[in-house]
């Protein structure tokens, strides 16, 4: 470790630790959290490391307070994050909505475990994927990323912070217990090789016409923080460009919601990241994310060895969903096979996007373990046979 407290080099690190280190490299200097298996290690790492880099760790009294503090810290000018699992994720939903409507950059890590409810705290699940999209009330878009290794958890946490600042939105890192508790090699490059998207500040000085919610051409307003002298008003109520409540103006609601949604949808080419393997000539494409993208590698290889033309499409970005790519692929492939550790969530998106041009075969798993490669291979063979 060098004097500034930032790590660099090659490490043997578990996913949770890598996530924390990624956050620190990204400039995160505030963590407000609450212990929950299997995300506790992120909190513990941040509690130890943040004071070493001049940041603040606070363990709040519950997850609701955690996300509220994270939003407040962001408005105080800090890059801030929290980490939780299913039960805490559910608690954070209301304030996630506050973060979305106030356009507060922050990162929320969900190390998913088997649910519903208390479920299987120490075992893997991927059952919160639809909740990531629709968990808070009201209409909105969200950005969610799914790493499938500790190295990716490091890299994608950094990406999450950058996307959060670029699009002024909370960003979800939807990892899972398998990745979070897996120990692998993580390479941490020097800071100057790490992309850092700085917070977009207003150009004009105070009292010179800056409106807190007047967007730049890309739909994102520059963000003045508390103490910058702009005397901003920020509210969870539907608001106009001044930030003032406009609770009975249908026009204001329409304008605001439309902009919040387009801010992300219209920029999906920049936001969506996919890893494709052998998809070019595939007749069957396995669509997977998180740990399931790794467990799918073996059935895909076995299928290829059997002479079946199978490819793997890994969703690195889960939301916004890569519907354009799926829609395009659907005209070329016979079927999509979607293994996930839930009873069919992203499979619904695949099916929707395929628009009937290709079959979608979900391979569900109630949780607590990983897919048996044979199971996924069977689904691929079934897809071929039909």
């Amino acid at each position, binding site marked *: 470790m060098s004097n500034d407290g930032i790590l660099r080099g090659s490490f043997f690190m578990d996913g949770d630790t890598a996530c924390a280190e990624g956050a620190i490299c990204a400039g995160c200097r505030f963590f407000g959290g609450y212990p929950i298996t299997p995300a506790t290690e992120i909190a513990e790492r941040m509690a130890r490391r943040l*004071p070493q880099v001049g940041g*603040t760790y606070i363990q709040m*009294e519950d997850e609701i307070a955690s996300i509220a503090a994270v939003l*407040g*810290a*962001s408005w105080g000018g800090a890059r801030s994050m929290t980490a939780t699992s299913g039960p805490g994720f559910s608690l954070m939903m209301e304030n996630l909505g506050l973060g979305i409507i106030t356009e507060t950059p922050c990162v929320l890590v969900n190390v998913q475990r088997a649910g519903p409810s208390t479920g299987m705290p120490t075992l893997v699940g991927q059952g919160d994927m639809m909740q990531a999209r629709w968990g808070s009330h009201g209409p909105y878009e969200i950005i969610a990323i799914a790493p499938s290794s500790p190295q990716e958890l490091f890299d994608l946490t950094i990406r999450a912070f950058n996307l959060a600042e670029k699009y002024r939105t909370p960003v979800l890192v939807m990892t899972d217990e398998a990745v979070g508790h897996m120990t692998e090699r993580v390479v941490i490059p020097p800071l100057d090789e790490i992309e850092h998207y700085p917070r977009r500040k207003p150009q004009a000085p105070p009292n010179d016409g800056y409106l807190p919610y007047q967007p730049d051409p890309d739909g994102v307003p520059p963000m003045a*923080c*508390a103490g910058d002298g702009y005397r901003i008003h920020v509210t*969870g109520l539907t608001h106009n460009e001044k930030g003032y*409540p406009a609770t009975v103006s249908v026009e204001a609601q329409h304008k605001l919601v439309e902009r919040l949604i387009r801010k992300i949808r219209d920029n999906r080419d920049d936001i969506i990241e996919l890893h494709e393997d052998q998809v070019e000539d595939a007749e069957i494409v396995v669509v997977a994310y998180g740990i399931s993208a790794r467990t799918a590698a073996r059935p895909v290889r076995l299928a290829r060895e059997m002479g079946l033309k199978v490819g793997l499409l890994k969703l690195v970005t889960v939301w916004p969903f890569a519907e354009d790519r799926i829609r395009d692929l659907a005209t070329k492939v016979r079927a999509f096979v979607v293994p996930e550790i839930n009873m069919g969530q992203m499979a619904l998106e695949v099916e929707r996007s395929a628009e009937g041009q290709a079959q979608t075969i979900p391979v569900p798993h109630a949780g607590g373990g990983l897919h048996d490669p044979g199971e996924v291979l069977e689904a691929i063979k079934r897809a071929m046979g039909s």
Partner: protein
Amino acid sequence: MAEELTNVLISEHHPMDSLLRQDRLPHIWCSGCGLGTVLTCFVSALQKLELDLDKVVVVSGIGCTGRAAGYLNLDGFHTTHGRAIPFATGLKLANPELKVVVISGDGDLMAIGGNHFIHAARRNMDLTVLCVNNFNYGMTSGQVGPTTPTNARTSTSPYGNTEHPFNVPYLAAATGAAYVARWTALHVRRLERSIMEAMQKRGFSVIEVISPCPTYYGRWNKMGDTLEQMRYYHEQSVIRHWTDPAQADIDLGGEIIVGRFVDIDKPTFSDLQREADQ
């Protein structure tokens, strides 16, 4: 028409306007609501304190009092129900130069926000909390709340409240607040002074302000309109500084003990963190 008012000069502006969002006045609060008076005392205190107003931040919750942030020309955050205090915690920890004031109501701070209140007090977070207590949930039309006195009638206690209320100063003191005071909306000068003391105090400062609700609580409990409720405060409030807050319960129509109850020095959350990091 203005000429018909005798001996009065008509103005477009008020001396406090530089601290107000004039384009949003008159505010939405009812005629006679004590909130405007509380804000006046707050603004007056700020003017006297000569702080860097760019660094004063107001965080409010949901409810009538929650609208306070929207009328002040300061960095203001109107957050979710009950969560003003943890939001304010994040703000303060990210930028310790900020002077963060939470202005919220009895329901927001004591019911849904109760847990956050007690933990922030326990941590002695360097925040000032103005808890405006009108004994009910006003914005949603007068439901029972955690500070509603026993036997009081509200829209969700039509047969009389069957619960015991919180005593806000007692709760604040017991959970570790460094400064605790209570005033009514009638005690304007003393409230102003308490606000000044609380803002200069390092640590968790709580000022409970008893405020009239002419539209719901007052009307349904035969306490009359604002003038009558203020008269009740005048007659039934007694200034007794340093009272043990445990003795300061408010019964329906009963005595209201006001004053400064707690003013102690203890390390704040940030003081202790700094020590530990050494």
